[in-house]
């Protein structure tokens, strides 16, 4: 493939991505969720792929970010006692500027809280290894969901309604599509930069042999905490916006959605190929599209298929799509192979 063709193909793809919500106006939410999926897979891969720490609990930051954003939005413009009744009706339209202000402050607050949370939790949990870390994070994710569904201030089990999106010339779908597109791209760029730096080498060393990495003088705990904080920030930013996109925060199905997003992020990352930059992106895209097919045609059996898919991929195909391609054609990935050039 020559260079001009490749450039024009890339341009066409970029144009398609930018124009997608305008071409398919009925699928705006689904397209926005596609970028959310990419982001989820990418952030899981920081710990799971690059650092070898199998976390089932990253969904905590997604949920905490979502709730923090909604609570800040609610606190800024509404009376808390009246809120639940008012937001259901139409009487409480915010102006666009107010809405954006609330959303911005909420997202910032959520991201900050999640970093603090990641550092605090990390101090206790990141010392655990292997099985213990995996089970501990699994417990963490579910504990958070259970606490949220019992906490009255957050609406307990009946959930929390986010402020309505103001009526303007562009709709909610368009706004959040570009938001998630920007955020996912930002995540990708930041991660690629981080992986190319000393940070990337350090967390790869932790994956390969943590004791050796430590005895070589790496501050492993510091790197692990940074890695967790980075995924926490992006998950919080994504969670806060996802709550507003859906419009209703259910503690177990939307915020701390362990059985859906929590599992999907793991699956997407290993499907695409964990430990690569493009793997999670590819995995998330393929998974989201096939999942839409499952939803349409399998009617109830899609989650059974999901479990089966995890087992099959993990047992028979642990390298993932990109990992398999890389093993097949290593010279394409800049690795030198004898006999080929």
């Amino acid at each position, binding site marked *: 493939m020559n260079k001009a063709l490749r450039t024009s193909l890339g341009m066409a793809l970029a144009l398609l991505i930018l124009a997608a919500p305008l071409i398919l106006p009925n699928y705006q939410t689904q397209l926005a969720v596609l970028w959310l999926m990419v982001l989820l897979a990418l952030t899981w891969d920081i710990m799971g792929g690059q650092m070898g720490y199998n976390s089932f609990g990253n969904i905590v930051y997604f949920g905490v970010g979502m709730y923090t954003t909604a609570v800040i939005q609610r606190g800024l413009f509404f009376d808390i006692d009246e809120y639940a009744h008012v937001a259901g009706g139409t009487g409480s339209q915010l102006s666009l500027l107010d809405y954006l202000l609330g959303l911005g402050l909420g997202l910032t607050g959520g991201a900050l809280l999640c970093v603090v949370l990641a550092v605090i939790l990390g101090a206790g949990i990141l010392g655990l290894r292997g099985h213990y870390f995996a089970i*501990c994070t699994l417990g963490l994710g579910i504990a958070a969901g259970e606490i949220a569904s019992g906490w009255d201030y957050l609406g307990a089990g009946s959930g929390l309604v986010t402020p309505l999106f103001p009526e303007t010339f562009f709709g909610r779908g368009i706004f959040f599509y570009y938001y998630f597109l920007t955020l996912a791209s930002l995540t990708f760029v930041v991660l690629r930069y981080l992986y190319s730096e000393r940070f990337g080498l350090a967390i790869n060393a932790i994956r390969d042999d943590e004791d050796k990495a430590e005895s070589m003088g790496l501050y492993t705990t510091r790197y692990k905490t940074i890695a967790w904080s980075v995924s926490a920030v992006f998950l919080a930013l994504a969670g806060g916006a996802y709550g507003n996109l859906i419009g209703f925060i259910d503690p177990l199905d939307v915020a701390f959605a362990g059985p859906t997003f929590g599992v999907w992020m793991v699956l997407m990352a290993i499907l695409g190929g964990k430990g690569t930059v493009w793997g999670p992106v590819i995995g998330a895209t393929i998974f989201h599209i096939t999942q839409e097919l499952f939803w349409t045609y399998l009617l109830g059996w899609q989650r*059974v298929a999901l479990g089966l898919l995890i087992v099959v991929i993990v*047992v028979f195909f642990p390298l993932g799509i990109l990992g398999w391609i890389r093993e097949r054609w290593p010279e394409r990935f800049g690795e030198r192979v004898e006999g080929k050039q």
Partner: protein
Amino acid sequence: MDNLLLLVDAPVFSLQLLIDGLLAGAIFALAAYGMALVWGVMNIINITQGEFVILGGFVTLYLSYLGVHPLWGVPVSALALFIVGWGVYRLVIFRIVDRDLFISILATFGISILLQQLMNQIFGADIQNADPNLGTLFLFNDDVAIANIKFVALAITIVVGALLILFLRKSRIGQAIRATAQSARAARLMGIDTDRVYATTYALNAALCGATGSLVVMTWVIHPFIGLIYTVRSFMIVVVAGLGNLAGVVVAGLGLGAVENFAGFLLGTEFQAAFVFSLLVIILVWRNYRLGKKRQYLR
């Protein structure tokens, strides 16, 4: 904290909570035996544990629909789950025994989701239970009421535990299991078919879970998505008791049951599950902190 005052005013009520909790703990301990076994012998943390428990519960439930007394469900569930466990081993687990823990933990996680959703499709998502009609025991001027099935559960746990120890000590395959736990490679060199040992261990674990599930459906309720909490309870019990310590598992199980029951009462039932999962995190962090002082790690 109103409930705390209640306990001060009526001390006999804390006795109710204590007995109830201890007996509940016996049921948790039964599933924990199996987890300790699989963990010790195969070095796999079986996240599927809870789903096996619930599946055992469904077997007993459907048996009781046929008009059989649910207590017969204990051996029947155990047998049925033994077969299921053997099948799961032959299909998936044998491929992951010697692979790294990343694969084994994700694979059992996947099986757990698969079973959960299969049960949801086949049996429906309703909350169900099978009443054994054993009545209730009233103590202390009727202030303390304990369902009799819980005493039966305690007896079954102790008997099964004793049988398990006997099996591991005396029988040929039990000795092979212990040898494999010590060193799989040496066991293979001595002519032990470790693949069969693993299959037996895993199926035995599933059978223990099946018996647990049968007790669970008689004592409390089951639905397809409640399994994970039993996995976490087993895990906690084994972590606290240590591997290869069956008596410790019983004690830790009883302790967990009591603590959980008190916490559920004090915090309100809506936080009981939250408490269990938070306790897991706290136990692991605390243990790691303690080991960190000795410059060791939980691994």
